[in-house]
């Protein structure tokens, strides 16, 4: 085990940190949010140019072949900068599903486009009733005349409004909550019969709801085994949890630093408020949470590619629980320590708080994962 950055990793981290620092001041972010797509194409091209979009994909398919640790470093930086760009949706989540299930031909076709920043893909898996159950898919796909026809509704598709393609989970067999019988299809965003409505999300990012009415998809755009999509959704969820964990750590670290700076600079009763011991202890508690969360983000990077599926899933559930808990404490305390300005849109700390809040409700909240761990018997073995 080695917790120090290797030289190459350091370069990598420096590069992404520099990019975020240069391009993602709070004012700049506000401007990007006002752009038509709600994020910056220019920043996206820079991410592409520096190779960040190619990061996790195999070299054979046109990627860079880096592992989860490097992805962790990138996502932490993105969290620090509260990036609005579709990195999570395209590279991590859709990219994760593709890495897990797409054929070599498909990957060879799509990865270079993703890497170049030319192709945005969003995974459309969530439906209004599905909550955190990946197997709950009512959207149907039927094979007719050599094509699949998709009908159904999807909600909260991250960056679904600017995506060029949507990776849609649809049922080719089975009942609504069966794990078997879900298939993934790469659907062109401008397909006939596909309507989408984009909206800003609570954390300032973008999402879309989709209605698919008999949308035609060529058989070649089936990703993975027919009916075997659930496993790919799970892999996408694994990658998403690991990425959200490191993104959350970035948010928390930034929120902590801002709060500490604020405490030192804000004067009240004739002295900096950092003098008040109760506030000092709030800051100390935040730090404790950040470190616990950081440990778990690292653990996520270790297990996200673990072949032992039960262990992997259980551990990632633990990661998500800790991230949610730490994120809640750090976000809430950061706002509290800032007082009034903490609840204004004009000040960055509230935005970290909102992002951390939304991370909690993506890919299962703490309670959901806690129940899963308990049902799986936990980690420590039993002895008298």
């Amino acid at each position, binding site marked *: *085990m080695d*917790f120090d950055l290797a030289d190459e990793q350091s370069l990598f981290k420096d590069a992404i940190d520099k990019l975020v620092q240069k391009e993602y001041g709070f004012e700049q972010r506000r401007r990007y949010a006002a752009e038509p797509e709600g994020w910056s194409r220019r920043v996206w091209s820079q991410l592409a140019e520096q190779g960040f979009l190619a990061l996790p994909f195999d070299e054979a398919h046109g990627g860079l072949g880096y592992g989860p640790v490097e992805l962790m470093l990138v996502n932490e930086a993105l969290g620090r900068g509260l990036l609005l760009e579709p990195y999570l949706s395209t590279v991590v989540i859709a990219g994760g599903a593709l890495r897990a299930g797409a054929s070599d031909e498909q990957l060879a076709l799509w990865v270079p486009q993703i890497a170049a920043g030319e192709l945005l893909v969003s995974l459309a898996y969530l439906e209004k009733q599905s909550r955190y159950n990946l197997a709950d898919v009512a959207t149907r796909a039927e094979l007719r005349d050599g094509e699949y026809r998709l009908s159904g509704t999807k909600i909260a598709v991250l960056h679904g409004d600017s995506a060029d393609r949507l990776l849609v989970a649809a049922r080719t067999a089975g009942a609504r909550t069966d794990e078997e019988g879900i298939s993934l299809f790469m659907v062109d965003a401008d397909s006939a019969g596909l309507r989408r409505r984009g909206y800003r999300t609570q954390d300032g990012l973008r999402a879309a709801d989709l209605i698919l009415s008999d949308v035609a998809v060529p058989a070649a755009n089936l990703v993975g085994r027919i009916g075997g999509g659930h496993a790919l959704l799970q892999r996408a969820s694994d990658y998403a949890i690991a990425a959200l964990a490191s993104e959350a750590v970035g948010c928390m670290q930034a929120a902590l630093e801002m709060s*500490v700076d604020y405490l*030192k600079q804000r004067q009240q009763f004739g002295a900096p408020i950092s003098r008040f*011991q109760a506030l000092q*202890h709030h800051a100390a508690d935040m730090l404790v949470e950040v470190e616990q969360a950081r440990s*778990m983000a690292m653990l996520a990077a270790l297990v996200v590619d673990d072949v032992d599926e039960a262990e992997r899933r259980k551990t990632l559930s633990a990661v998500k629980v800790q991230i949610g808990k730490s994120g809640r404490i750090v976000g809430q305390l950061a706002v509290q320590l800032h007082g009034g300005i903490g609840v204004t849109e004009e000040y960055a700390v509230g935005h970290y708080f909102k992002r951390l809040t939304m991370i909690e409700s993506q890919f299962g909240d703490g309670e959901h994962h806690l129940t899963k*761990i308990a049902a799986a018997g936990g980690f420590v073995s*039993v002895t*008298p």
Partner: protein
Amino acid sequence: MNFQPDPADQAFREEVRAFLREQLPVDVAARNRRGFHPSKEDELWWTQLLYRRGWSAPHWPVEYGGTGWSPQRRFIFEEECFLAGAPPTCAAGFSLLGPVLYTYGSDDQKARFLEPTRRGEIFWGQLFSEPNAGSDLASLKTTAVRDGDHYVVNGQKTWTTEGHYADWLFCLVRTDSSSKPQRGISFLIIDAKSPGVTIRPIVSIDDAHTLNETFLDNVRVPVANRIGEENAGWSYAKLLLEHERAFSAEVPRNKRLLSQLKHIAALALDGGARLIDDPLFSSRIAEAEIELRALEWLTLRALADMDHGADAGRPVGSVLKVRGSELIQKIGALIVEALGPYGLIAYPELDFETLPGPEAAAGKTADFLYRRAVTIYGGSNEIQRNIIAKGFLGL
């Protein structure tokens, strides 16, 4: 960064396990796992046994009989011993006195004390705290006045863990009261049999005797028993307090408690069912487990820093102390709750078998009560938060 564990460490873990399987008698293990305080005999006997394998002072430098293990291996060793139920070794001697002695002691002092300690022939007691100097250690009042080639020591010390086992004591005394509180403190070692030394038990809330207070009444201590320079003792003691911070989350203890919790929850009746089958109770166990996982990883990160001799740049020791101690108390409370009616019985150490309840019940609540101390000693959690806030965050 590479988070894959080292296979060589894994092999080392197996080696330790095999050693424990062969050497640790079942009854000794059972006694220690129960949660009652260990006996002096068990501690010294186990130290002697480890000594024969060369493992009694793993973290000392090799030249003084240490093992040369990496911090990670020391952690593995400690965890395996603890989980198996091995008795502890004298913490005051190995973790506190040893490092001061081999760092600041004279050659003669090293020769007199290091080897016998390692052999399990000397039990040490620590005399730092005083009734009116808890977290504010530097305000200590015990005096040592020079009288020829002796110091005459007067004062009162408290919280001497296992002091009634001690053959020798080490003590912080004030040798110069005119200077700042931190200066003017010296570090003495005192024969526990010296005239004027009185060790009095403090019965703790688990109804057990492991703590003591020590009265020093005109105790004559040869100047040769002073470690290092006169009036420089504070810097030696500070070194101790910062020592071993990567171990301060007590991950092994937390693991053992959790595993016992699960065992008890599986035995405990809850109406007609087992408590562990209650989804809410098992979720609470899961919560504690997640906390433990995060702590274990934070510990691994801290060990890696130690290994590199690097300062983590973070107050990791404080974070580990705060969270590790809180977790011990949280799991302890879950154990008492899981035991239900048997969590309330005062099981005596000697004939608990005659009382109702599962065998696993004995000692658990006593341990829970005693572990109220973990958020208080070694720098209370409030002090740790001050360290984080002031020392690290710069508030």
